Structure formats: C-alpha cells, structure tokens
C-alpha cells in the first residue's frame, strides 16, 4: 500500500502501462512540461517526446488523429485538458471513434482513452467547470469512467488503457491533490463494477467522481442521527453496475442519486429511472435525484456555490426520504 495523490496515481498508471506495452502513447497540449495539472510529470523524461507527444492547440486533430492512430494498432491516450474543450472534438469522438468499429463491420478497432478533467474548481466559471458525463453514456460505442479515489484512478486508468474500446475517462479537477492508499503492484479495477463505499440499511445513495466524497460526508453526519446510509461509488458509468445498485435498493428500499452535473438530463435520471422501472415494488419512498440546477456556473464564489451539490443538501434530502 502506497499513499498517493489522485494525480500521481494516474501518472503511475500511465508509466506502468507504457512500460508494459510499447504501443501506448499519450498526446496533448503541454504534455512535455508535465501537463496542466502535473499529471504527466516526468513522463517525457522517461518515454521521450514521441510517446509523450506535445500537440498544437487543435483538439479536433488530437482526437481525430488518435482515431486513425488507434485503427493502426497503437493505443493513444488523448489529453483534452478540460472536458469543456472536448466540445471542440465531439465529431471526432462521437461520429468517428465511437462508430468506426461498428460502421466498418468490425474490421477495425479504436482502442483509445480520452482524458477529460471535469468539474467545478473554484471560480473556473462556465467554460472550465462542466461535467458532461451524461452525454457520453448516451453514445453507443463509448465506455465512460469517472474515478473518485487515487486507488481507482490508478486501477481504472490502467484498465482503460488495456480496453479495446474508446474510453472516455473523466477525472475530477478538484481531486488531483486528494491522497489515498493505492494497492501495490499491477493494480487493476474491473470496468463495470461499482464500489460500495459504505454499507448501510436505510437508504442507497449512488454517486461517482467528487460527489462521492460529498455523499460520504453526508453519511457521516446522518450516522450520528442513526440514519444508516449505504453509499455506492459507481466509478463506471457505462457499463454501470445495475446489479449492485438494485441489490442495495432491494435491501434499503430507498434510492438517492447525487451528482455534480446538471440534474436535468443528467446520468442520475438513467439510474433513477432504471430503479423505478425495476424495483418499484421494493421502494419505501420515491426515488430521488440531487444534481445541479439548470444554470451555467458562475465565477463569483457565492454564485458558484448556488449550483453546487452539498453534503448538507444530501443529508437533508436523505432525512426527508427516510421520514426523519
């Protein structure tokens, strides 16, 4: 067990996979200087500028070139800096990467990982704060991962690099400095398996990415009030671990989905709808979602906080649901 930061865990994952497999390479702006968040620190020194490749400011080409390079048998790790800028490369990701294998009848594959740092990061404002994971879950062909801890950021990123599908890999900017234990050795986390972060009897709280920590904080508070919440970190949004969630709800009879993204049309709707469809008769209370209002994110901290999902809101919503 090592204590690593979320950023360092990802750095190690890439280094290990690049040592293991010579076809793995990374490409993006400023990678040669370690990347904007230091998540590529030292890699160019070990692997050189061909495998840790700088790119011009041209997200469409970074993404589109990765598709071509992946079809040719290399395994690109695409760094898009902020998930907001991925919107400059959406055709390449959605119309090309996600569909190529299918359209061509399985002649080719597009094994690549697109890293898109997501989420609010104090006063980054409307164009540097978005969480659009819900979009990607809607696109056939894409795998969607969103780790919440250093251990998962290492294990899932390694799994993503080994996956033969295009993987949208969403790291949360706020978590870069977060420290946590990471298992030694070749630590891999299976894609599609959720993590029960805290077992509980009264309610199932499903979340992912940074919001998991919000839910845990709420669960601690609630525990003092003898409300026993089960917190599930989905980690993998497509495929997502329906069985773990449904089994939990079968036990608790209640579901709350919490995410940082806008609530309307967010992935929480998929989970809530699925549980409502599949577990209606097991529910002691209506399913509930807690996401962001449908407003852009402001720069001023007090306004920014208005669209933030908090532990207090999570706890308050839970109390209502358990009738406390």
């Amino acid at each position, binding site marked *: 067990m090592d204590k690593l930061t979320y950023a360092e865990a990802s750095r190690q994952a890439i280094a290990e996979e690049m040592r293991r497999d010579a076809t793995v*390479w990374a490409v993006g702006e400023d990678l040669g200087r370690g990347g904007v968040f230091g998540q590529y620190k030292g890699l160019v020194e070990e692997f050189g500028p*061909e*495998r840790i490749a700088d*790119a*011009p400011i*041209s997200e*469409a*080409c970074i*993404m*589109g*070139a*990765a*598709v*071509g*390079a*992946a*079809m*040719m*048998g*290399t395994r*690109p790790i695409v760094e898009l800096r902020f998930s907001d800028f991925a919107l400059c490369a959406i*055709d*390449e990701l959605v*119309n*090309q990467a996600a569909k*190529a*294998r*299918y*359209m*061509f*009848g*399985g*002649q*080719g594959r597009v094994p690549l990982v697109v890293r898109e740092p997501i989420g609010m990061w104090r006063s980054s404002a409307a164009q540097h704060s978005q969480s659009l994971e819900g979009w990607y879950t809607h696109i*056939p*062909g*894409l*795998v969607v991962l969103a780790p919440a801890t250093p251990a998962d950021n290492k294990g899932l990123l390694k799994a993503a690099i080994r*996956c*033969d*599908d295009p993987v949208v890999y969403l790291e949360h900017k706020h978590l870069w400095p977060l420290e946590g234990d990471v298992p030694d050795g070749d630590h891999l986390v299976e*894609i*599609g398996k959720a993590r029960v972060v805290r077992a509980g009897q009264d309610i199932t709280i499903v979340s992912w990415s940074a919001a998991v920590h919000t839910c845990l904080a709420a669960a601690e508070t609630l525990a003092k009030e003898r409300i026993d919440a089960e917190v599930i970190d989905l980690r993998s949004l*497509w*495929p997502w671990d329906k069985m773990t969630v449904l089994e939990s709800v079968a036990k608790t009879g209640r579901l709350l989905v919490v995410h940082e993204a806008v609530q309307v049309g967010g992935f929480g709707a998929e989970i809530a709808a*699925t549980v409502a469809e599949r577990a209606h008769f097991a529910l002691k209370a209506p399913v509930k979602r807690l996401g962001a209002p449908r407003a852009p994110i402001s720069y001023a901290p007090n306004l920014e906080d208005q669209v933030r999902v908090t532990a207090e809101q999570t706890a308050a919503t839970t109390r209502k649901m358990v009738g406390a």
Partner: protein
Amino acid sequence: MAAKDARPPSRNLDAARLLGHYRTMLRIRAFEEAALEGLEDKLVLGAIHPSIGQEAVAVGVCANLARSDILLSTHRGHGHTIAKGADTLAMMRELFGREGGTCHGKGGSMHIADFKVGMLGANGVVGANILIAVGAAHAVRLRKGKEVVACIFGDGAINRGPFLEGLNWAGVWKLPILFVCEDNGFAATTRTHAMTAGEGPAARAESLGIASSAVDGNDLVAVDETARRLVAEIRGGGGPRFLLCKTYRLTGHTGADPAPYRTKDEVAAAWKGDPIARLRDLLATAGVAPGDLAAAESAARAEIDAAYAEAKVSPFPPLERAFADVQDVGDPRREAF
C-alpha cells in the same frame, strides 16, 4: 500561383501500365453505372455519390500505393476503394446492404472500407477523414514503418477546420502522407469557388508548409506520374505532399440529384473531357490494339454485371449483426438496460 504545375506528362508512355489503369477506370465506371441502376431498382438503399468523371484521380493516385499503404476516402469513395484493390462484389453487396459486404452491410456506400487492402474508410462527415489519415500516418511514424498514407478529399472540405488542423499536424511531424484534393468544382449544389476565399487548396497547403502540385485530374497520365513522384518523395522521408487534381463531377451530387443548378451545355462540354475517353484515345494513338481496348471494356462490364447479379441474390445480414461489434464491455441490447 502557390502550386507548381506538374510538367506535361512525358510522351514515352508505358502502354501496358496505362492499359491496366484503363481497366481499373472502366471497372469503376461500370461499378457506379450499375450502382445507379441499383438505386433505380431499389437495391441500393441509401444515398450514393457517384465519381463518374473523376476516375483518373482515383486510379492515378492509388496505382502508386502498395497494398500495405493506407487510404482514407470520402462519401464519394467507390472509385478510390476499387482502385485501392477492394473486391467489387463485396462492395456491391455493401451498397445492397447484404451479408458479405465489405462492412457486412452495416456501413453502406458512405462508410465503405476494406482494411485488408489498406482502405480505412470512406466518411460521412466532410473533412473528418483528414484527421484520421493524419493519425494513421502518425502511427506509421511511431512504428517507424515505411507505409505511405493517402488521404483524398473534395474541394468543399478545404473550408472546414480539420483541413487546417490536419495539414498543420502533418507538417509539424513531417508525416508520410499524401493529401489529394479532388476538385470537382462542386460541394453538393454549391459551386465551391463561390464559398472559397483566396487562391484555393494548393495555396492553403503551401501556407502550411506542404509542397503542392496541381494537375489536370482528368489526365490519367499526369495524375499517375505526379502521384508517383510525390509518393516516392514521401516514402523517402520528405514529409507530407499535397496534390490538387482539377476535375469535374459529371453526375449530380447524389444518385438522386438531377443537378438543375447547372446547364446542360456545361455538362455536355465537361463530358468532352471524360478521363476514360481521353485515356482511350491516348492508348489508341499509342498503338494499343482496338481489340484490347474493347476486351477491357467487356471484361469490366462482365465483372460488374456478375457482381450485381450475385449481390442481388445475397442474403441480408443475420440479425445478430445489429448488436455485434458495438463494443467489448457493456451489453447494447435493450433487455440489458
């Protein structure tokens, strides 16, 4: 003028080589005439974009690529695909949406691809193939391979961002890629010159540091000789090259487009420049026996007639294919949700 015009083709012709090119051009023409017939007969199910009149570009470029070289094409890619070596029966089946099609009927004309001959796909999104081609060339560089990548796109694609982003990238990394702009004068119903500022494709490529050549795209010999020179330069490590081929789209934009936005006279005049007729005349004057030319024509027609007949009786794909090759992880079927 940004691009240097290729010198007039030398007149000491390799008749055997050119006869081979003639055959390929005839096969492309026959394939697309049959595809248009298939559209009438409701055998071709989606839109098709014929390249009738542009065959010299496809053949002149692809004739200079090895099977192991890579090609990225467009929505108007039948000719490119045949010239790169794809099997016309598999292609016809693809257009008919049948099992045994190059993509098992899942792609159709606009997504035709044949990876085993290095054809990595047509594309339904104008300009998107440029970035994928650049990435393929980047992979060749990473693997220190010797393959050359050819990327063919239209004169309309040069106004999309990927043209700039892709050519800049190829220039920065000195990638082994030949960009071919097939300038047929139109983007759908629009005359491209009206929507294109500046001197056009070659000048833009030059501004991105990519040496450009311009040729008469209906002159098979000129395309062939120039492409040969450029592919050799690229394979020799010279980095990217750009080839502008001026041609004309003799049909409508799609098989269903009567193209009322241009005059009969304009089209009639353009037919006088039909690259197949031009090559035929050249071969005749070069002393190729009329019988050999006639034989090439009937052989092409026979091949395509057979493909048409065979594709027509080929089964549609098994339903399982609808959910195959989506992705490795995750179940795409509704029952799994």
